[in-house]
């Protein structure tokens, strides 16, 4: 382990020595919408999201549109060019109207989850009421409009969503648990004790350092914070500092579980 000052001053340790794993701090914002979400601005296109993420000093982001992951691949492709790690995900609305973040190690798993969600998501979008749902490519061009009612609730319970996310190899976090609407505590009164969540997200309204104190309902579950950005200016307005070997989905899982020195820093 390198002394603490290396991380605190963000000085990179010497070039990797074969067989030695060096843990560093990475800045993560794991809840970013794109122009696919009806409530998000068109400016939330793949290239602009990546550019803004880099300006904000982020190392790792997750794309979580409402009940869909159709823009994750385009953001990930642009992220790869720019050196920003991108995790594909969805912000799923359960039948109790609880918002859950489902994050995956690859596009195949994210799209498999999306197929399951689509099978349990009724209704058609009305763009004039809810907003446009734009599928974009990594050149920021419009590919299609998604006709589904992405802002709606699925017919799946929170328990089913957590189970299915895990069955597909993903991580499942309760979104913005401090918010009165669509947060798990507001909708369900308390977090079901046996619900196998991998973590809890608090919104930008609460300092992460005080999350467990302000929200005793969180218990011993790990908390992180993210921007829930619907417009460019909000990307990175808050972020979570995570100690990991590299900014990947696998390392994120280990950090949430607190394995081998990985963890949430702030």
């Amino acid at each position: 382990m390198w002394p603490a000052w290396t991380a605190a001053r963000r000085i990179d340790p010497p070039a990797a020595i074969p067989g030695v794993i060096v843990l560093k701090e990475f800045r993560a914002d794991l809840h970013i919408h794109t122009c696919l979400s009806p409530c998000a601005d068109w400016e939330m296109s793949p290239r602009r999201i990546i550019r803004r993420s880099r300006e904000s000093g982020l190392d790792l982001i997750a794309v979580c549109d409402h009940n869909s992951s159709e823009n994750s691949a385009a953001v990930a492709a642009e992220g790869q060019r720019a050196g920003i790690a991108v995790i594909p995900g969805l912000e799923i609305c359960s039948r109790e109207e609880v918002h859950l973040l489902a994050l995956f190690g690859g596009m195949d798993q994210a799209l498999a989850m999306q197929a399951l969600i689509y099978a349990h998501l009724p209704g058609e979008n009305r763009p004039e009421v809810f907003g446009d749902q734009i599928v974009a490519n990594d050149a920021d061009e419009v590919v299609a409009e998604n006709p589904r009612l992405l802002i709606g609730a699925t017919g799946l319970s929170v328990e089913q969503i957590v189970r299915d996310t895990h069955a597909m190899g993903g991580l499942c976090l309760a979104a913005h648990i401090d918010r009165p609407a669509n947060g798990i505590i507001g909708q369900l009164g308390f977090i079901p004790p046996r619900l196998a969540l991998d973590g809890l997200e608090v919104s930008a309204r609460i300092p992460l350092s005080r999350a467990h104190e302000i929200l005793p309902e969180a218990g011993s579950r790990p908390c992180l914070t993210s921007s829930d950005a619907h417009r460019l200016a909000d990307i990175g307005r808050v972020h979570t500092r995570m100690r990991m070997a590299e900014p990947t989905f696998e390392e994120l899982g280990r950090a949430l579980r607190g394995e081998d020195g990985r963890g949430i820093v702030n």
Partner: protein
Amino acid sequence: MIVKELAEYYGLQVAAGAEGLDREVRRGYCGDLLSDVMANAPIGCVWLTVQGHQNIVAVALLREMAAVVLTGGREPESQTVARANAERMPVLIWPHSAFELAGKLYVAGVDGRPSD
């Protein structure tokens, strides 16, 4: 009025907690945000909701409710049935909207005043 009389008179289906049908109905409450119900439902009320999640049983016990009524014909989840049976908390099903049943109960003298 006890829960058994309410169920029979209005044609509610008993989905769980049949051993608790002798509970006394004092007041009424409608709500689907469980955090709100935990804070504001009157003690001893019958509670009308669309939420079938198992947390409703804990909320009902907390407010010492007479019964929970799932409106719009919604079914409780299997874990909800198991917990309601274990706690003898009646869970009833009403096929129409909460507005319809709340109106009938109010006319019959069940009011929605907060607990004293």
